[in-house]
């Protein structure tokens, strides 16, 4: 399985590349007052307005300081949502196990876009 990899708060994460529509330099994120805590806000990505998910909040981790560096927009059917991520970004290949994947001998937490959205919805 081809994967997109990144780090947050010292942990390595991986998203299946099939679940990713594009990676873009993060535009300004417009916060949504009274919105759910797992959502940073809204951003415009290639003419679409997408919800920007806050991975640190969703996973209960410490958020890196400053604004997010990149947005990873999900592939359909979740293509109106994106994940805010920092540096470094990379790719790799690995065989997924239960909730994790090993890439070049290094374990990564395997993320699922539907599950992230469910958490962001409070589900």
């Amino acid at each position, binding site marked *: 399985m081809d994967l997109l990899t990144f780090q947050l708060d010292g942990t390595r994460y991986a998203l299946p590349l099939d679940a990713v529509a594009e990676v873009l330099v993060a535009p300004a994120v417009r916060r*949504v007052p009274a919105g*759910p805590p797992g959502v940073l806000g*809204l951003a415009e990505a290639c003419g679409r*307005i997408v919800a920007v998910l806050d991975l640190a909040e969703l996973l209960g981790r410490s958020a890196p300081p400053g604004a997010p560096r990149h947005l990873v927009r999900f592939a359909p059917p979740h293509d109106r949502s994106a994940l805010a991520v920092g540096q470094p970004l990379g790719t790799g290949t690995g065989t997924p196990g239960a909730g994790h994947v090993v890439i070049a001998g290094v374990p990564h937490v395997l993320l699922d876009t539907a599950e992230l959205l469910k958490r962001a919805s409070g589900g």
Partner: protein
Amino acid sequence: MDPSHYLDLFVAEAREHLGAASELTAGLATSEAPEGALRELFRHLHSIKGMAASMGYAAMSALAHDAESLMERLREGGLNPGAAHGVLEGTLACLERMVEAAERRTERVDDPERASLQDRLEREVRGAAGPGAPAYDAGGHATPARRGPDLAAGCVRIALIVRRDASFPAVRAALVLGRLAKLGRIVRTEPPMAALRMGHFDGRLLVTIVSEHSARALGVKIAAIEDVATFTLGPAEAPGEPARPEAAKLSLRVRADRLDALLEDAIDLMSSLGRAPGLEREAKTARRLYDGLVDVRLVPFEVAARRIERVAQELGRRLGKPVRLEVAGRDVRLDRGVLDGLTDPLLHMIRNAIDHGIEPPEERRRRKKPEVGRIGIAIKRRSASLVVTVRDDGRGLDPRAIKQEAIERGLIGPAQAVRLTDPEALQLITLPGFSTSAAPNEVSGRGVGMDIVRSGVETLGGRLRIETRPGRGTRFEMTFPVGVALIPAFLVRAGGEVFAVPLSALERIAVLDDQNTEWRDGARFLSEGESTIALTRLDERLGLAPDPAPPAPMVLVCPSPYGARGLEVDAVLDRREIVVRPLPAPLQAVPLYAGAASLPDGSIALLLDLPAVWGEEGRG
């Protein structure tokens, strides 16, 4: 070929045919049946028969075939349309149930009433074709002869003379044309309408009309027009456009996402051209393109209403509960995708209302209610939202009993139940497994399939609210984003953020100063002579830090069913048309906003849903 791959297409197309057939069948009961309508009805049944056969649904195909035979007899004039109306309605309802069974992927697509309906259809057909069987005219009276082909519908030339004693003859002629337009499509008039508007009329009017009514029926209707003195009818060719009537009915099935992509392109084009000097004409063309694309996606609610009415009528009859279904907003046009997604939740609610909400007639009599139960569906646009309500005058819901049921089913604990408010308790009926159809009691007056209703509504990005008055009835309100829409709005600032307020929601804007405000019991009011308007600070309502020195505090005064309301903002920035898009998941669940719009500077404005801001959503 595995037909199951085509199931979605089959279900969608079968419902389109059934909806159209249902409308035509309703016409059989109330008026004469024009040849064109009978031909159309036959065509719809024929399509259903063929589609069902190709999917392997033999029982459905056989029923459609027998109904088709009945239509043949009707077209030949050997049967009274009024007499056929009942059995045709039953047949369509049965076909509808079979389509639902197919949609549920039931192993054997059939219906308990199918066999008896086929018997009835066969009896009608045999009776009509038997020796000495009477023929009927359109009004149901026996006639010695069948209708001849010379009375078929088509293109007709009408020469008529308007009453000479009528004042304003050109106006009278225009009125006559208006009446004729209701009988068909007028393709030519002499003198033309423009001349009539200028008062040029010598008393004679030549009209070429394409109508589904037979010439005989047209004659009867024209004779009934008050201002017509005399007239003659004759066949005519529709000049220059013989294929138009059929071509106009052609439809194309287009994937919604492709249409949406075109719509987004049109918006981008419109937005770019709108900012480019000297390209006003091109900007107008782009706007027409946008309007046309939006229009293509919209269908009237009437399309679903017919199906819902059919189901309600059928279920009420089966359960021995007479119900009257009132539909408001049939002509409201909504996105096809929303309509398709909305229909099943609505059907669930209507079925629940009849099955469990509406009491049996004897119980209603005891409760001093009208014997006929009332169910209302109302659909309306509210800025960038679509609001659909379903209400009934049945037994209503008991929040305490619902809590008890939820505890018994292990959905919540007793301590959790104590903390729930009544409105929160009502929401429990939308939990999966709350209730089953095997437990219809005072508690599960509803609940059957309400989890399906909620998930259907949420799939569309909508929200569901429930209100009840025990013994008096229940009201469900669903709010959906309408899809991409261009709306005029004011851009305002509060707490350092920009928001959009739909122009349609505003009455006026007032400058706020110490002279026109007053405080009462800790609340601030806009004071205007005798009247005062309660103010809501937007920054406070949204939990934003207040601007310490707002540049020009203003109040947006908005009408509301509960009295005028005032929204206090730090500044009104601009008035402009904005392209509002629905909020993406999971923000659709935030009730305060109806959508979001990209602004020319690249920022994003949130469109406020004012009833939700006031906390009025779902009241009333």
